[in-house]
């Protein structure tokens, strides 16, 4: 059994700076962290690996600063880590990203399962998993809480507003995960030692036999037509002073508004 986990580096919230002129993220200066949903994907992959002795391959598209995150994936459970990196990939929207991921995944065939996060913490479109599945021509199941194999079929539990949905699919599929786990394993010390001396595989546009016009900015139909800061009509008030005095003022206000009994 082969499981491919597709992970993304997202800027750490504390280190993100917004350019005051253009209002865009200054990505270069931000430190990257693993997209939280992708940490879930790795944990699920690790559990499936234990259960079915699966091989786990982690891939990520991004500049070389995502390498530490791939190493992290190795130290958690991945047996092989591949960076998909090329200047031509820069500026990709979800479609151009999915093209690269789909092509890389194709090269890793045969595989049984592609695990992704439900959505990324920065882009937050949740489009990449289903788009990638569409490009691969295989089923996609989104918002998966848990999944397992039964009689060569994949059973996926999917959370909806109405309750849990149980879906059955023939592998291979792409699943985007939102598992709400209460435990994520830390890196293994042995794997941390191993990954230090491991050569990283890097695949470029050429390795993936992708034509440049379908990639990056030029291959991205999405255009950002404008970025604006949301203005709040209701301005908050800031009270300053001694805690006791402020508490009294707050109680008076709450009573006035009828939130507390007079």
């Amino acid at each position, binding site marked *: 059994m082969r499981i491919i986990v597709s992970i993304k580096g997202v800027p750490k919230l504390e280190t993100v700076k917004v350019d005051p002129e253009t209002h865009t993220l200054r990505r270069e200066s931000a430190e990257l962290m693993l997209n939280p949903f992708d940490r879930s994907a790795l944990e699920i992959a690790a559990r499936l690996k234990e259960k079915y002795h699966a091989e786990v391959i982690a891939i990520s598209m991004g500049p070389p600063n995502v390498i530490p995150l791939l190493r992290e994936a190795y130290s958690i459970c991945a047996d092989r880590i591949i960076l998909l990196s090329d200047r031509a990939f820069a500026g990709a929207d979800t479609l151009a990203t999915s093209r690269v991921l789909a092509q890389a995944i194709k090269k890793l065939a045969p595989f049984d399962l592609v695990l992704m996060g439900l959505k990324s913490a920065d882009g937050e479109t949740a489009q990449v998993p289903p788009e990638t599945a569409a490009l691969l021509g295989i089923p996609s199941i989104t918002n998966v809480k848990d999944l397992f194999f039964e009689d060569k079929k994949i059973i996926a539990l999917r959370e909806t507003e109405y309750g849990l949905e149980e879906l059955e699919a023939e592998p291979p599929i792409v699943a985007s995960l939102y598992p709400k786990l209460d435990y994520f394993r*830390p890196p*293994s*010390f042995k794997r941390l030692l191993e990954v230090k001396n491991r050569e990283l595989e890097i695949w470029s546009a050429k390795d993936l036999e992708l034509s440049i016009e379908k990639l990056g900015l030029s291959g991205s139909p999405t255009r950002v037509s404008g970025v604006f800061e949301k203005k709040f009509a209701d301005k908050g008030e800031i009270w300053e002073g001694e805690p006791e005095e402020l508490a009294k003022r707050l109680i008076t206000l709450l009573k006035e508004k009828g939130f507390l009994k007079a």
Partner: protein
Amino acid sequence: MLVKYSLTEEQSLLVELIKRIGEEYIAPFALEWDEKESFDNRPIRALADADLFGIIVPKEYGGLGMGVFEMCLAVEWLSYYCAGVSTTYAASFLGAYPLILFGNEKQKEKYLPDIARGKKLCAFALTEPQAGSDAFGIKTTARKEGDYYVLNGVKQWITNGGLADINIVIALTDPAKGPRGASAFIVEKGDPGFSAGKKEKKLGLRSSVTTDLIFNDCKIPADRLLSREGMGFMVALKTLDYARCGAGAQALGVAQAALEVSIKHAKKRIQFGQPVYNFQAVSHTFAEMTMRLEASRALVYQVAKFIDAGAKDFSGASAMAKCFATDQAMWICERAIQMMGGYGYMRDYPVQKFFRDVKCLQIYEGTNEIQKNVIARELSKVYK
């Protein structure tokens, strides 16, 4: 830290990983575990998944094959976050050492890989109600019956009692011979006639589990005997010699945490128009705390390295490391509270927990009075 140690790449990675586990799996919960006196398996599972139960297990059995020094580094930094968690962790080594040091090939193959992977937790059971410091006074018996031993008796205050899958138990196979008639056994969770008593209520280390172990015609296969009959105290004492550095290392971690929390407070707390750290009575106390902590660390590290270098006689050395570091840590934690005034005394702040936790380190794995007896005995062998 004013004294810096140069660690190897592997050792630094180990400390980093422990700190990561501490930040993520322990720090946010430690005060709550203490308050509720509850054991949480998650940090233990994290340590297992991180391979860290394998530190002292030889590589051929799936462990990391590291030494007492690395064990101390791990225990020290775990204790920085919670000495209760580090007690659960270190007590498992107390149960693993007898297998590593005295197990036969079959026993090692059967148990060590699972211990290394953290799939099985260990305990070490020597103390009995009437036999604390006077460990030779144990009364638990192990009677040979054909291919079995039948154990009867009660062990008291056993860390990981009821949790551990593998319990190393010291019992008398030949009561007539006294301590020379003691032997060490491996008792597994689920063995007939073996059970754990109720969980003790403690002053500190409240996220660890301490219980009685009860043997009521507990029948185990004869191949669970460790080493030979009559070697029980040899096994127990050698194990404690190795593990005692770990108790010293626990003291380092707790004292380090106490120092950091209290100095940060003292530099922020304004009285008489200035931070209390500006008062010499306060800053000199911190100077004294740091000196004692660094002296303890130097001793614990040095003794650990002495053992790893292949020393044969190290009872006196490991007794010194344990006794000195834990006494200093007790003093440091007491001063940390004093330097924080009422804030140090309140249960919303962690220093009172350090103070309660650290107290036990002067008691378990042999009281500090007993350590001094050991040191004095070893000393008189050298200066005849």
